[in-house]
């Protein structure tokens, strides 16, 4: 298995945000979703950089919608998860789960879904 097929942490976060947002996944919403859920400051540039990388790997697809006035006449770029992306995030989850299995660490550690 090529190295590129493992997902990095931020890639996982972005993909999960994409899944959560379903039909409304574009730059601004993805960024807000991540910030809201992780409490982590995220720049729009970092989001796009990751999305472009994921697109290149064939995990996500994107298309331009019609321009809107509230965006100063600029089009939204919507993203959707591709089958390859969904199996990749699945794999990442299984990998982490199997690593955690049987470990007893202090505190309430339940993997999030």
């Amino acid at each position: 298995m090529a190295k590129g097929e493992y997902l990095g942490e931020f890639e996982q976060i972005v993909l999960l945000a994409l899944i959560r947002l379903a039909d409304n996944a574009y730059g601004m919403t993805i960024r807000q979703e991540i910030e809201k859920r992780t409490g982590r400051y995220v720049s729009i540039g970092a989001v796009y950089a990751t999305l472009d990388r994921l697109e290149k790997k064939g995990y996500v697809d994107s298309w331009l919608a019609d321009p809107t006035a509230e965006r100063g006449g600029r089009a939204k770029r919507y993203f959707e998860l591709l089958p390859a992306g969904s199996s990749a995030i699945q794999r990442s989850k299984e990998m982490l789960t199997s690593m955690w299995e049987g470990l007893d660490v202090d505190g309430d550690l339940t993997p999030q879904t």
Partner: protein
Amino acid sequence: MRRLDHRPPALADFLLYLCLSPRAYNCIRGDLSEEFNKMVVPAFGVRKARRWYWLQVIRSIGPALRGEIACIRVAKKKGSPMETLLRDLRFGLRMLTKTPGFTAVSLITLALGIGATTAMFSVVNGVLLRPLPYKESNRLVLIKERLPKFTAEPIDIPAPDVITFQQENRAFEGVSGFQPVNMDLTGIGSPVRIGAARISWNGFQILGVAPLLGRAFTAEEDNSGQYVTVLSYGTWQQKFGGSPDILSRKIELDRRQYQIVGVMPPEFAFPLQSTRIKSADLWVPMSFSETEKAAVGDNFDYGAFGRLKSGVTLPQAEADAESVVRHIVNQMPAKWQEALELHGAIVPLETDALGNVRSPLLIMLAAVIFVLLIAVTNVANLMLARGNSRQKELAIRMALGASGRRVMFQLLCENILLALIGGILGVAAGFMGTKVLVSLVPANIPRLEATHLDYQVLLFALLVSVFSGLVFGAAPALFALRTNMHDSLKEGGRSGGFGKQHKALRSTFVVTQVALALILLIGAGLLIRSFQRVLEVNPGFRPEHVVTGSVSLPSTQYDKPEKVKRFFVDLVERVKRIPGAQYVGASTDLPLNLSWTHIYTPEGYQPPPGAGMNSSAHSAVIGDYFEAMGIPLVRGRLFTPEEYAKDTHAVIISESIAKQFFPDQDPIGQRLKWGPEQSEDPWQTIVGVVGDVKQGAMDAKTMPHTYTPISSGTFSLMNVAVRTPGDPAGTASALQSAVWSLDSQLPVTQIRTMEQVIGESYAPRRFNMILVLVFAGSALLLASVGLYGVMAYSVTQRTKEIGVRMAMGAQQADILRMMMRWGMLLTVIGVAIGTVGSFFVTRLLTDFLFGVKPSDAITFAGVAAVLGLVALLACYIPAKRATKVDPMIALRSE
């Protein structure tokens, strides 16, 4: 709506714009402004929202600069700007190898243009642009005098004036005298005459150059006339094999032993004057003799140069020179003061050294830049044609997400790559070109040996290449930027979306080329016609079958006038005995190489008020000089043996003097005297009138000429002339033997036939003509290739139209006419513009023309006709091809 009133910070936006590709910018800017207006401003207020916006932008710059933010959809390999550049270059190279024909033609054209420009620049750089080989050479000036009654040009000065200037100037750090002299070098191989220069003891110091070995002269050596010498680096190497013990050696000059005290560095050269062929091989102290010091107001034969004190301007130096000359004049007898009207003059050393060659070299450089421009427009035209056929490729790339900027950058890379390869070939061509150029150049250009490819020339070639790349790349790249991918793709297989604009631009290029080529051709035409005129000039003597050689007697052995005269009388007698010698004579100067002038006044002549003095070229002769040289006797008689033996004040004048002063009377028996009317010289009686001869170059004005017999003075240098019935070449060695039979240590120098002498006088003109002709020929070739290319392209473009026309019944002649009309229209416009341009440009050539006006109608018409014919041919070939179009194939091809 209130929230829309708040605009995100413009500067942050601009930053974002700079860092991102336009598409990525659109997405991100849209997201940011939506969030800014919809959420951040209502929640946190404008100030905090702006700060948030800034933070977002700044934190996005990193990924953007690392190229992590791509354009959408197309999976592209990302890299640093350097990688992008390399990728573009690789791609460019691939594209160039894909179209080998186009690449080869472009490269040859560029190599020609850049090579010629580089070669010419290296000469200009070597000769004109490098500073003279002295310290702060801009402060070095020549001190001269002006005799407005005699000549307008500043002239050298008498020996006593050099000393006065050394003592009485206020503007100079120091003043040194100098005088180029020829000396016989004996004791090393066979005797030779070398070029030396006398120079004052402080001369090297004023020039600011220290000897490489040893020392310069001391004031003591100079003043007491000691026999010491400083060698040039070349002399040290060639005559002494670079021997390290050179400072303990002596050298025999003019039969005296000179102690070698120093060797100058290799780059040192003095005197550097464009009128003298080369600088001195060695230097000896000025050491003025008592006779020289006493010759007040006579022999304007000594050079003087000085270093201006810092801060002294040329006008100040000029004023100082004038005041020194005033002082000199005040010491003279009253009648001289009036007659001479002497003034001081200052000439920057650099002007004197390079003045004569500056404008021809710069004109050649301008000519070669014309050729370069034509070459560059040619390549631009090719590029446009190719750009047209590549338009679909570009449109596809842009449709796939490449930005216009990106495509333009790519094209520029490709063009500059082409230009650089052309430049490398050009430098190689220029390297050879420089060698050819240097070997062709007449010897009168100083410092030519210093011409070579150095980093400045390479830098120049690089700049020219990049400039060419930018120029011929700009138009196609700009068109690419404006490529409308929609239209290009929709047109399917057909190329040519910018039909009209392209055509206009290409037409402009062709018109420019034709105009530039015409200007060059007219320049070349004028020079050729001048050369023709010069060849037609009658030199006034018959140069065929005459061989000459120069003999100079050293004053050590030949210290008495009788000895000198005896030697030459004997020599002429000896040479007469050479088998095949028909006439033998000798003269102080040969035609075309005359330097001696006399001021004369005919008896009873009343000059009109304000007139200058009459000056004539002058020669002292012996033997059958006039017969040997073939100068015709017009009236009276030649000198008799008695007149050669004893000075009876007989003089022979040239026809022009007879015509000017004795138009209605017999000049024979009339008298004239040297100097002004008041001079104490005896009257000279005119015994004969001979034809005028050319004293300087063939294209220079003929001066009046006076001749006296050898008995009129003491002349240690004479030129022997021998006329033979057939080829004179074999006579040369016999001449040398005759001299050696009288004195085995005497060299005979400058053994040449008079035909060679004439040939040498043509050399600079021939060089200029050949060079301009080569440039003009290249220009014509390039321009016709350009025209041909445009026509051929237009035929390809209009194949369908032609097919339709022929299907509709157009005859071949109609098609031919239609195609040729456009090409010839371009030619006519180009010729018209070029003709107007030539009227202005050829004026710069005035100084180089002879017997032809800069606006010579015959040349203009002839050249336009030649260019028209070539253009006709360049149009005809593609147009003829158009008539061969098969309507069926043409229509089906769509």
